[in-house]
């Protein structure tokens, strides 16, 4: 019994050591704000007071969210997360990045494991019942990616009898299952897992949002191509706790501000903009 106790304490200490520490590399654009600048009792005040924020993002989306071995995440989502933290007066060192794969974004927000989620997170009505969305800060659309030499797939209507690769619990997978039931789904935990099977012809198509696919195409030396036009609307929002309207409105204000002053475009150009064309500025949806 004594053994168990001590080892639990040792373990607890070790957890403290293992906790992800993100070291900052870029410029520090932390806003000079204090907790008192925010309404009493608001989430913003609490976060500014604590000086730390936990942000959920993905670690497997080129251009949007990847984790470098050094422990620094990078990508467009990550930059947006940093800007929001900065507006709360939290420096990059104060951000704890947590990996949220498609299937566990809602649970993480609901149980408070993360304060906000910036993870190519599509705003849709089903999810609005579970979590609250600020944004969108980017509009994507679901598309298809095939090998360069494939020529019999132009649009989702050609998917009958094809093996389509996507991720468990993601919107694209659900969309295919609901609207194109003749396609055979192969589900992994991450979109990157789909690339090797696609290369080997074990799956015919990879489907997810066009921007993510564009990242893969850019990295692939002409092995892959994106076919056809996006066939859905995927507005990316920032997920946060349901009912926290005050926090949501504040994030929406921040987003509108950065659309205006060029910080949003800078973040884009530093990350996804290296490969993708400049996007239209989205309109924040204050539902």
């Amino acid at each position, binding site marked *: 019994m004594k053994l168990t106790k001590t*080892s639990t304490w040792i*373990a607890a200490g*070790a957890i403290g050591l293992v906790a992800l520490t993100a070291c900052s590399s870029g410029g520090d654009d932390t806003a000079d704000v204090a907790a008192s600048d925010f309404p009493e009792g608001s989430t913003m005040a609490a976060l500014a007071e604590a000086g730390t924020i936990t942000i959920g993002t993905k*670690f497997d989306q080129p251009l949007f969210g*990847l984790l470098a*071995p*050094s422990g620094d995440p990078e990508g467009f989502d990550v930059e947006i997360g940093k800007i929001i933290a900065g507006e709360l007066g939290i420096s990059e060192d104060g951000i704890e990045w947590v990996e949220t794969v498609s299937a*566990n974004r809602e649970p993480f927000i609901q149980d408070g494991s993360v304060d906000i989620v910036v993870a190519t997170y599509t705003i849709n009505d089903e999810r609005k019942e579970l979590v609250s969305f600020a944004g969108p800060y980017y509009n994507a659309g679901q598309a298809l990616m095939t090998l360069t030499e494939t020529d019999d797939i132009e649009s989702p209507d050609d998917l009958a009898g094809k093996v389509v690769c996507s991720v468990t619990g993601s919107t694209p997978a659900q969309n295919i299952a609901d609207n194109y039931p003749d396609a055979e789904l192969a589900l992994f*935990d991450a979109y*990157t897992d789909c690339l090797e099977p696609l290369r080997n012809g074990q799956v015919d198509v990879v489907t997810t949002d066009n921007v993510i696919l564009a990242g893969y195409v850019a990295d692939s030396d002409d092995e892959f191509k994106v076919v056809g036009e996006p066939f859905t609307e995927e507005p990316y929002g920032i997920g946060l706790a349901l009912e926290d309207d005050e926090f949501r409105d504040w994030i929406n204000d921040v987003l509108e501000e950065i659309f205006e002053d060029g910080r949003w475009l800078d973040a884009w150009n530093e990350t996804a903009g290296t490969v993708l064309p400049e996007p239209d500025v989205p309109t924040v949806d204050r539902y």
Partner: protein
Amino acid sequence: MSSSVLYDVPGPRARRLDRILNVTFSVAFVAIAAYVVYAFAQRGVFDDRWKVLWDPPKGQTAADVWTSLAQGLGNTLLAAAIAAPIAVTLGAFVAIVRRGITRRLVTGSATVVTEFARGLPVLMLMLLARLAFGWSPLWSVVFGLVVYNAAVVAEVLRAGLTALPKGQREAGLSIGLSPMRTTLLIELPQAVRIMLPALVSQIVVLLKDTALGYIVSYPELLRKIKINRDYFGDDYVIPLFVVGATLYILINLAISRLATYVERRLRERGKGANPPEIGPAGPIPQSGVGGPPRAEGARAGDPVFGANRPVESQPMPQRYPGESDEEFQRRIGQASSQRASLRANDRTGDV
């Protein structure tokens, strides 16, 4: 029974055949290995992709890569280090309850709980903790490992307890200990000793099962390998995989070796009962991913006459009351010479 009983001491013809077979198979294995290496080289397995381990691309340093892998290994070991003691304690508790309390309600419910815990995939238990209880990835992994392994440890200890000579329990009860205390003070220490090897090998299982943590995105070693692959691209997966697999195998082999060593030590000291064998005497401890390693030459022997029991486990004589040191030493000497001759006979299979 050692495998050598299955065939005769080779005569000249058999020896020649042996040599021929030895050479043939060795050559065949070497040829296959050489072909595999050649095929790999043809596919460019040995090109500059290995640089990821000392000079990675994308502006990362080798230290970064190794640090991230070390973090993964640290997380793997951490989850195992938290889960193992809890699982053993809990398992012992369940085993004691099942042994010491004979009320049907209690034992019945304990049986149901262990059956449930043993019958569900560990991966699923982790998912339950993550999605339904909303625990952190680390504690979800620990939960899955504990629930499952506690059930296995309980089964292992139960097998150990039932393998003890009946007299132990009777003696305990006869000096006025309650059934519970008999179990705690007399039976359990012996059972733990007998089953120690099985318990140690269960740790290997537990450590391996941490790799199931990918389902709740716990950043253990395998997950870290995947994250690095996502970052650097698919070309670099082979070196990262080789590093990961080597680490796992080395650590687990070390633990397995420890288990075998402990077992041999215990057998050499020749005290205590013989460990119950898989098969007739008790269940083989099972893992979420297969059973634990067994030592070489484990054997059950003849349950009726005790023939073919490993000689080392034959009981040592006890001192009679009022016996002088000399007498006792002489008797021990006799016993050990008997054991020596038995061992010699054992080699020729003449018991």
